[in-house]
């Protein structure tokens, strides 16, 4: 049963007519071609499908699109356009954080949320912040180092 849903997506207002029980993940990838949102586990465990819902990180594979009606969604495509997002992407590149890249959109979103609420995280806090994001390539160390780099380089951005 299709329903008209309206929400904010990466800063602009969008409307679609669709089954409200479709996963937000599928709507973002298929209807809006935002393929930076990845599907890993399909059950909330791996973080590859992470997006921001009203500024908070959620896993879009376990959210029916009907639940974002009237809300604000931001994907990696939106986050990487922000000042902080750009800085994290650069730090990940400079720090050698990326191997196959599949987990990276989710990792960037997790890092973005972490630094916004905690501009000077300890190593433990960084590891906690990305504990819902699984990476099968890197062993995490270079991702953690890159987040430290992003924290240092972005002092002014994160603290405002």
């Amino acid at each position, binding site marked *: *049963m299709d*329903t008209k849903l309206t929400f904010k997506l990466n800063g602009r207002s969008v409307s679609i007519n669709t*089954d*409200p*029980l*479709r*996963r937000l993940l*599928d709507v973002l990838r*298929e209807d809006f071609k935002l393929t930076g949102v990845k*599907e890993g586990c*399909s*059950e*909330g465990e791996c*973080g590859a499908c*992470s997006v921001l*819902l009203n500024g*908070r*990180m*959620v*896993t879009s*594979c*376990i*959210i*029916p699109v*009907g*639940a974002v*009606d*009237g*809300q604000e969604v931001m994907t990696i495509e939106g986050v990487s356009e922000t000042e902080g997002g750009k800085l994290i992407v650069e730090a990940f590149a400079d720090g050698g954080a990326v191997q196959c890249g599949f987990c990276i959109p989710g990792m960037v979103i*997790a890092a973005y*949320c*972490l630094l916004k609420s*905690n501009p000077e995280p*300890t190593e*433990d*806090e960084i*590891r*906690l*912040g990305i*504990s*819902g*994001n699984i990476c099968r390539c890197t062993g995490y160390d270079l991702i953690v180092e890159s987040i430290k780099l992003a924290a240092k380089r972005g002092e002014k951005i994160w603290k405002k």
Partner: protein
Amino acid sequence: MEEVKTYIPSTLKEALEIKSKVDCIALAGGSDLMVAHKRTLGLTPKFDKSVMIIRNLKELRNIYINERGECCIGSCCTSAEIAESPLCPWHLRQAASRMGAVGLRNSATIGGNIANASPKGDTPGPLYLLDARVKLSSVDGEREVPVSDFIIKFRTIDLRSDELITEIIVPLSEDDFDYIFWHKVGTRKANAISKITLSQAIKFNKDDTVGDYRVSATATGAKTNRSRDVESILIGKKITPELIEDVIKAFDAVISPRAMPEFRREATRRMIRRFLTESSKHPKDKVIDTYDGYHVTGQPEPRRK
């Protein structure tokens, strides 16, 4: 078969009216339901009943202290909101702050965690400990039921098809106790399903006898375990090593862990022994830690008066 529909009410009143007419599944965070009904990659989850999405109902997202001093938590408050709220009792904030990882905590709601009635659910332990009640609402009115009665057994709750859980009311907090303890044993520091979680709290009388002692355990049986009989062993008495062993033995008889039973039993015994032994020495810190001094940074602190 009736057509499967999805309702997205914009007020609680509207939601309760729908509930009174249609037998539908309430979907809050969706973190249990969407996984339980998932199909394969790229496919829409399949529900055999109509669904009502209640995640964004503002009326269900407040946290406040009522006129009786009880903490009232809207059923759609997320684990993250509870973990962050200084109004919420410490044990509950601990439990909420260690559910899943960041993303999950922004979806998982307290109402969903209770209604799911899984013995591994993290919030019932503290809620049993602190005598919490659920408020159930329908177009006909409201009723309140202790959480420990509301969860009847594994995956079975005392909820009529026309009702929604609207609020969780927690009358007690760490302020009512001298020493508190909460420890989740998982397979890793973060993002772990509970192997066992123990919540404890104690208050001493002026003459050093025990005024109040409580212990509840998660993942040690078909539902969260708490027993007034066991706790009453200590009431009115001074703590002695013998008495501690009596409590441990009695609680051991209450729990019925299925997988890895000996590990779960031994860990439970040790945590009870640790808490009672340490608190009887009246240390300065209100929070009694475990032996390993295990501490995850960023955990909620107890209120300081």
